[in-house]
């Protein structure tokens, strides 16, 4: 793909690349070495700083906060998929009075920062309207409104990306609008959208960490709490390292799943693109259609 940017290296280029490799590698090694050295100097690798991990209570606390993170993720994922399905259907509707409000809602929630949505739910609604929204629901509903709107766009563009012949043929067969959508368009669209949906779910999982800011007791919150416990030796670096590894591993696993499905859809595509440029172009179309922010 990108190897067309440079020639197959000849003897001189090989020497040059080797030199650049050694130089670049040495610079990177020096950088990581320096960072690791600073971490070591700050006591990240001292046994004393890790004693807390042997306490059963703390292990249970960490597991509980992991469960909190996953609970918020699961609820938000289900609700935002539902929200997305409803509003995608709304935007695709032929009735103006349905599609217009649906578009406004979707565009609004996509343009407002997710954290501000959570603040509105947690501080605004509960203080001003007297409705008591717990931190858990503020996180889940905030994620639902934002990611649901993103899902609505994903579903809509997935249905619109199908060849027109599909819906025309089904109308010609005498199917109703609902039948066309349910039996013809959605099954195809969902399959091609699966990788995008999964990578958006990674965003949901990542954004549960925002709960930290509104005091939802998820992993980061626990890291801050345990890290400030003087009697444990304030092991902030250590706990943060553990929490970071947990978060990144979970997201990497979900991303790997998304990539797996992407490869599978690419392979089973009926018409393989004639040149690699076309595949890349379709990549970019998907990127260009990606709603504000895309998978960020």
């Amino acid at each position, binding site marked *: *793909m*990108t190897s*067309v*940017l440079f*020639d197959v*290296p000849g003897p001189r*280029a090989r020497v040059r*690349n080797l030199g650049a*490799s050694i130089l*670049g590698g040495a610079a*990177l090694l020096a950088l990581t070495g320096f960072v690791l050295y*600073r*971490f070591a*100097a*700050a006591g990240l690798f001292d046994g004393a700083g890790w004693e807390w991990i042997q306490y059963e209570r703390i292990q249970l606390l960490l597991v509980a906060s992991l469960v909190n993170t996953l609970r918020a993720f699961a609820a938000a994922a289900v609700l935002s998929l539902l929200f997305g399905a409803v509003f995608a259907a709304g935007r695709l509707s032929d009735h103006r009075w349905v599609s217009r409000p649906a578009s406004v809602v979707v565009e*609004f929630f996509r*343009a*407002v*920062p*997710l*954290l*501000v949505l959570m*603040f*509105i739910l947690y*501080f*605004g609604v509960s*203080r*001003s*309207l007297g409705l008591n929204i717990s931190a858990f629901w503020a996180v889940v509903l905030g994620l639902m409104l934002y990611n649901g709107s993103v899902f609505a766009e994903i579903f809509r563009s997935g249905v619109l990306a199908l060849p027109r012949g599909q819906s025309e043929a089904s109308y010609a067969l005498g199917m109703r609008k609902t039948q066309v959508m349910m039996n013809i368009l959605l099954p195809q669209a969902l399959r091609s959208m699966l990788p995008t949906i999964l990578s958006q779910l*990674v965003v949901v999982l*990542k954004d549960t*960490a*925002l709960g*930290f*800011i509104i005091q939802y007791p998820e992993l*980061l919150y626990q890291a*801050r709490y345990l890290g400030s416990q003087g009697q444990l030796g304030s092991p*902030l670096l250590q706990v*943060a390292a553990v929490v*970071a590894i947990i*978060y*990144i591993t979970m*997201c*990497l696993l979900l*991303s790997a799943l998304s990539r797996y499905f992407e490869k599978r859809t690419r392979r089973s595509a009926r018409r393989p693109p004639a*040149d*690699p*440029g076309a595949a*890349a*172009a379709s*990549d*970019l179309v998907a*990127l260009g259609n*990606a*709603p*504000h*922010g*895309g*998978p*960020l």
Partner: protein
Amino acid sequence: MNVLLDNLGLFGSAFLATIELFVVAAVGSLLLGLVLAAMRVGPVPVLRAFGTGYVNTVRNTPLTLVLFAFAFAYPLLKLVELSFFARASAGLILYTAAFVCEVIRSGINTVPVGQAEASRALGFTFTQTLSTVVLPQAIRSVVPPLTNVQIALLKNTTIASGFSVFQAGGIYQTLSERGYNVLVGLLWVAVGFLILVVPLTVLQRGLERRWSVTR
């Protein structure tokens, strides 16, 4: 309306801080993203591996975690002392650069193979091919997704309010201290962000119209 008019100074300075944070992070992330993209498509294996590893890791890290590390863990390392603002910018730059890199790389892939082949045939080196032939064409086709990344960055600046950086995301705290209605204040903040997104979208449309190439 009172909430906004009585606190116009607060809203003004907070949104100004947001814009400041955004501009610093946007410029930084575009530059770093460009360097990372060049690393990822370049001929040097070590740099290529580093670029790939960096992008894959950072894209799967929550931004809150990155800012958390810069706000709370960085001071423990006792390196150069930086303000909260500088640390938040650093976090935003490192995070957003990974997404910028991916967008630019996919843009490079849309440039027809013949372009790079022709410039190689003319004897251009990798740097020349990339900077004078491929990138100018790639940048044109990535204007929309690149703007989307920057819009997301603008919204992400609010996360810095959890880490002692005064900007629009933190307005509600001052409002509640002053005894104003927080809900109304937050809705005005939302409106402020809607207004800030508009010029970016206009810029995107303008650049798209001016730079679009028919292929």
